[in-house]
């Protein structure tokens, strides 16, 4: 087995930085020569996967669209070996991804409609000042070299509530539990994060499910561009700007929870938990169906360590709950083996300001809330966009057959048309009744994004020095 060299990986491929601030810059290249000079000088600033003694103030990452690599004049014999979905880009894959209706490209931000984004440059920082300091240093470098023009920036930050940053998103759910473990990736393995073995124990996934150049779950090297050195230790990233209609969400939850169970505050939180599969504080409802349990949350081993095998009807966690859809664990039988090649690693942060705690009082006010620019920047890493991210999006978010839910889509993420519904299976218990939410609105709207190649440190150097040789 290949040995992992963290010094050759971009750090954010290995781990989420857990820094509360980020700025994502979208670059356009105008001269391959000047861009190569820029990359050469940026190289020493890119944060690697090496463990640090002291956490830095900020971290820098870079990734390229197919247009970006073409604008850098990589050899055609290399460009043509990139996977088709990456060459096409996310916009062209809209029909496969179910990015229709309000999510279709004509509703995207200008930045993403034009297809002129060549690179994503991410700066994560411990404070906003740390981010802007690093951003200014890089901007200076871009100006000095003339290597790239910044088409736009996207600021993102953890939500700040009660005097502290938290891991919540704008609908109030604690997020970011579900990242898989991979062999040799330096995180400590956590039960529930890898794959199930035949004895029902959790073990890490093959490294090649995340990184190019390593064996994947099929024992094969992931499809990757040539030369091997350009691809190895790299990965592919999905970037999606997901606008959240917080007014719509609050109104929907209030409307339906008033009809659910006792119709009180606990019923409201319980219904909210049924949408996602976790209570809003993050407690998995499969483990704790009646109430959030802080004890489970404080123990990483418990917060992700559960299966659905003893809940085949969805009485505890609905079959269509978000986390059950996108990470079905053992739901499909065969010891969970059907899902091992459909896992993705998530990065990313919320953007926009936290909405007020009190709900909007009128539909007009709710509509005003919806218009506020806030949501999540969804970033996912995987070795194979088509097999992993696109499959999850197409089959498990935008369709329901694998979950025995026919055409039903994910409640929160789905692009809903008329007559769609969400079913809470429930049981005979009065506090856990079967329930149907119908007339689903669109809670989340895609505002743009693309597919990116995240090269290794070596590969950035090869590009900078014009050493990419496919022969």
């Amino acid at each position, binding site marked *: 087995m290949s040995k992992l060299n963290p010094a050759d990986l971009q750090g954010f491929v290995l781990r989420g930085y857990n820094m509360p601030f980020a700025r994502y810059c979208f670059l356009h290249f105008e001269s391959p020569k000047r861009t190569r000079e820029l990359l050469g000088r940026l190289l020493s600033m890119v944060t690697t996967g090496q463990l640090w003694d002291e956490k830095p103030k900020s971290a820098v990452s870079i990734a390229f669209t197919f247009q970006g690599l073409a604008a850098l004049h990589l050899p055609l014999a290399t460009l043509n070996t990139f996977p*088709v979905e990456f060459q096409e880009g996310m916009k062209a894959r809209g029909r496969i991804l179910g990015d229709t209706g309000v999510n279709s490209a004509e509703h995207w931000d200008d930045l993403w409609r034009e297809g002129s984004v060549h690179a994503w440059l991410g700066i994560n920082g411990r404070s906003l000042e740390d981010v802007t300091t690093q951003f200014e240093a890089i901007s200076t470098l871009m100006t000095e070299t003339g290597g790239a023009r910044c088409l736009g920036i996207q600021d993102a930050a953890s939500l700040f509530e009660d005097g502290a940053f938290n891991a919540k998103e704008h609908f109030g759910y604690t997020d970011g539990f579900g990242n898989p473990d991979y062999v040799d990736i330096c995180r400590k393995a956590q039960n529930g994060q890898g794959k199930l073995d035949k004895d029902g124990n959790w073990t890490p996934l093959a490294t090649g499910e995340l990184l190019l150049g390593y064996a994947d779950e099929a024992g094969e090297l*992931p499809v990757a561009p040539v030369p091997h050195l350009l691809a190895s230790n790299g990965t592919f990233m999905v970037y999606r700007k997901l606008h959240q209609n917080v007014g719509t969400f609050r109104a929907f939850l209030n409307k339906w929870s008033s009809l659910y169970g006792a119709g009180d505050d606990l019923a409201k939180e319980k219904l909210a938990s049924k949408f996602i599969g976790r209570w809003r504080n993050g407690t998995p409802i499969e483990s704790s169906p009646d109430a959030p349990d802080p004890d489970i949350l404080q123990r990483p081993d418990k917060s992700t360590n559960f299966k659905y095998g003893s809940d085949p009807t969805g009485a505890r966690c609905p079959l269509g709950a978000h986390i059950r859809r996108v990470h079905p664990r053992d739901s499909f039988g065969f010891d969970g083996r059907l899902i091992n090649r459909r896992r993705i690693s998530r990065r990313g942060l919320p953007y926009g300001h936290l909405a007020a705690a009190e709900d909007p009082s009128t539909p007009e006010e709710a509509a005003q809330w919806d218009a506020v620019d806030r949501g999540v920047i969804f970033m996912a890493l995987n070795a194979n966009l*088509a*097999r992993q991210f696109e499959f999850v999006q197409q089959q498990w978010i935008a369709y329901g057959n694998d979950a025995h839910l026919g055409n039903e889509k994910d409640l929160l993420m789905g692009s809903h048309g008329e007559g769609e*519904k969400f079913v809470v299976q429930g049981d005979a218990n009065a506090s856990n009744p079967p329930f149907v939410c119908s007339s689903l609105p669109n809670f989340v709207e895609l505002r743009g994004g693309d597919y990116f190649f995240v090269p290794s440190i070596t590969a950035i150097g090869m590009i900078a020095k014009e050493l990419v040789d496919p022969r």
Partner: protein
Amino acid sequence: MANKNGSIYGLTLLCPILNDENASPSHDLQIREYLSELTADSQSPFAVAPGTHLARLVVMDDVVYVGMPACEEHLKSKYLVLESNFDGDLDDYLVGLATTIPEHLDAIWGHCNGYPGSSDKAKFVQYMKDCQLETTFLFAAVNDKTVTQTLAALQTQRAVAHFVAEHQGADSAKIQRDFIEFLKILDAIPPSKPAMNAQPRNIKTGGRNE
């Protein structure tokens, strides 16, 4: 048992296509042309003829030589392949095809060796049986229900789901009253017709590992 799974029959036919050097376009191309114009919606021949769960028609040109160490082999003929999962017995199904879609059968199989036409049903059935291969794998999504039962069940499921959503939280007496009424309506609804969701078929997944 081969060919059968419960009440569902799995049929595989390999029918040799005429090899006439003077035909232009050649017979296999004429079949391809005809198949490419067929729809998968409710006007599909297999939706018009009764009993088909899933059917597929393919022109098989040859076996593909994949290089060393495989030895290079070729088929003696081009073949028209039919794979179909249907309800009931083979004879009834074939007679059903010959009765309901004779013009399609003759237009397609007219390019095959020895095809007797569909008007003489006994000869037609015998010809098809002569071309039959044993089927041991059936389409996984077909359970042991007939096409009509499956369509009715889906229709009932949709209607009941709608009824539940509409009556959630309603007074029990009203639910019962409406449900009795609902059952009458449901019974009276004509069964839906078989068809595939006829979306464009040019979806490219791009996944070379798929």
